[in-house]
């Protein structure tokens, strides 16, 4: 194996335990994997992450070594944030495998310089659960004049726990302590620190108060467990405060829990329930939440809704597709079209739903189109089962118009 590695054929070493046996071989395989993940971006990460996680998590020593190496690389000002993301994906992957990586995460984060904060975070992260005593410690420390660095609490797994505690409908936080949860989350979301040569020069808390107040307002609305009709009067409050990314994240989580409850659509008779319009609003305001929104819409689209009448079910799926059209119109183009395109190949997809999607898309788009979009969308357009019935003989329909518009682009490609 060492000889294969020395000759430069890292890609040939496929057995994880073989690769991990010698540190030299492991290092080279790691180099090859990280390089291909970085060069391939989000798509490569999505595709190759499971295999990469499997290799890195082979043992606690391989995990430690990989995280140390990547932590050093993440400090590189140019491009380091890409590596930071990979480190986090690995942390999540390890957590999903039931491995306790919290001590390594915290030892690398510099938390050791703040032993009380470190021990509070460590106990919550290891147990995957928050508790009032540890939150109080963090609340007190971050309320002082000279708090620990904000990065310490900007740990995605910790922020997720806070969001869950505040926005999961069944979550019960002791009212006495709730303000502390809100404060710590708002602090992580809003405070900006300025460093010069590694020394903190300034802490800007300007947005802390408005973020805390907005979080409190929305959290109360979500926790009251109101029905859609009762919430109607609060729509403008929700719309206004959803502009804070952390609130949008929480509301999306809350919407997720609410609409995936089996009784939700049975009890809701509005054509487009309020909660789904909230998804649109989040999508409009936050590009970074587009993927999360699509994941939720896909989950809804693929739900069986067996308790609903067939026609009601079909209408509901159209409503969900309309949300996807909205997501598409706000710039999440290729992932949405890719999803619908893949649906066509699934045996249980009602083709009239795909037709609905295509019609709605054609209704809002105009040239110039990018080749990537045309390449993805054209198979839907050219599929007679989908568009045959919406075409007219004289070619004045939107389908023919689209084909006419892209003729130039196709000629260029040929």
């Amino acid at each position, binding site marked *: 194996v060492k000889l294969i590695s020395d000759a430069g054929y890292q890609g040939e070493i496929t057995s994880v335990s073989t690769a991990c046996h010698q540190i030299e071989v492991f290092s080279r395989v790691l*180099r090859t994997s990280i390089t291909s993940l*970085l060069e391939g971006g989000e798509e490569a990460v999505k595709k190759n992450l499971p295999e990469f996680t499997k290799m890195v998590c082979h043992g606690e020593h391989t995990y430690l070594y990989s995280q140390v190496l990547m932590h050093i*690389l993440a400090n590189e000002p140019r491009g380091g944030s890409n590596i930071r993301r990979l480190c986090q994906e690995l942390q999540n992957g390890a957590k999903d495998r039931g491995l306790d990586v919290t001590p390594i995460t915290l030892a690398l984060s510099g938390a050791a310089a703040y032993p009380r904060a470190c021990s509070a975070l460590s106990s919550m992260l290891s147990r995957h659960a928050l508790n009032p005593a540890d939150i109080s410690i963090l609340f007190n420390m971050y309320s002082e004049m000279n708090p620990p660095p904000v990065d310490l609490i900007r740990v*995605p797994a910790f922020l997720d726990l806070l969001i869950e505690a505040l926005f999961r409908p069944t979550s019960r936080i002791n009212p006495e302590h709730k303000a502390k949860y809100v404060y710590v989350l708002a602090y992580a979301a*809003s405070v*900006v620190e300025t460093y010069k040569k590694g020394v903190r020069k300034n802490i800007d808390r300007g947005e802390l108060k408005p973020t805390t107040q907005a979080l409190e307002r929305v959290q109360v609305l979500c926790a009251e467990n109101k029905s859609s009709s009762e919430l109607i009067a609060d729509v403008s409050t929700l719309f206004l405060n959803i502009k804070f990314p952390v609130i949008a994240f929480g509301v999306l989580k809350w919407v997720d829990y609410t609409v995936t409850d089996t009784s939700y659509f049975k009890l809701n008779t509005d054509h487009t329930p309020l909660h789904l319009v909230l998804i649109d609003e989040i999508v409009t305001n936050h590009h970074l939440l587009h993927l999360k929104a699509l994941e939720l819409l896909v989950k809804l689209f693929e739900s069986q809704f067996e308790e609903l009448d067939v026609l009601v079910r079909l209408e509901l799926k159209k409503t969900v597709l309309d949300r996807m059209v909205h997501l598409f119109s706000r710039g999440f183009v290729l992932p949405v079209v890719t999803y619908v395109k893949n649906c066509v190949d699934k045996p249980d997809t009602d083709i009239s739903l795909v037709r609905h999607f295509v019609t*709605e898309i054609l209704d809002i788009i105009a040239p110039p189109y990018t080749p990537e979009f045309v390449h993805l969308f054209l198979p839907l357009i050219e599929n007679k089962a989908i568009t045959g019935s919406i075409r007219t003989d004289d070619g004045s329909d939107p389908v023919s118009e689209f084909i006419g518009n892209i003729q130039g682009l196709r000629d260029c490609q040929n």
Partner: protein
Amino acid sequence: MATGDTALWLHNKLGSTDDLWSGKTICAQLSQQKLQSIHQCFHALQPHVKVKLMLSFLHIHRRNVEQWRMDMEEILLMAIHDSDQWVSMVGEILRPFPSTGSLNLDLIDNNATFTEILADLNKVVKKAASVRMLPMECQFLNKTAFTAVAGTQPAPVKHFALKRKPKSAILRAELLQKSSEVASNKKNN
């Protein structure tokens, strides 16, 4: 406990090569005396047992780490000079852990492969800077905090022109209208 017994105990606890994450299972049974005994037999342990033993240090309560610091450091020092490269690397990474709780990130002088890989990857990282995979916490951050962390983001690719807004726009307007009606009714009542 005699040195031989300690070695046997460690072998029984950490000897399996199937589970390479089992270091933490011995934490509850470690003591200062035990660490001293381990120090005596460390050289005779199998490499993967040595590695797992050191990794157990990460899971020990901080208060105990402070009390047993010297004993842990002696074991790590032996590991750093071990002929097995994984053992010496893990020892090197954990060297500052007993005294500071942090890890050694200054490994360049100690390991040629590490230095080579790090230098290569550094170039790759810089070259791939335009890929822009954002760290996960960015989803939570207010705009100012986000820009401070991730810089200005490039405008997304425009795949088409929008000739009219989708139906969602009408729905939004209707909902806001309904909302203000309900709100004003509430006020009047």
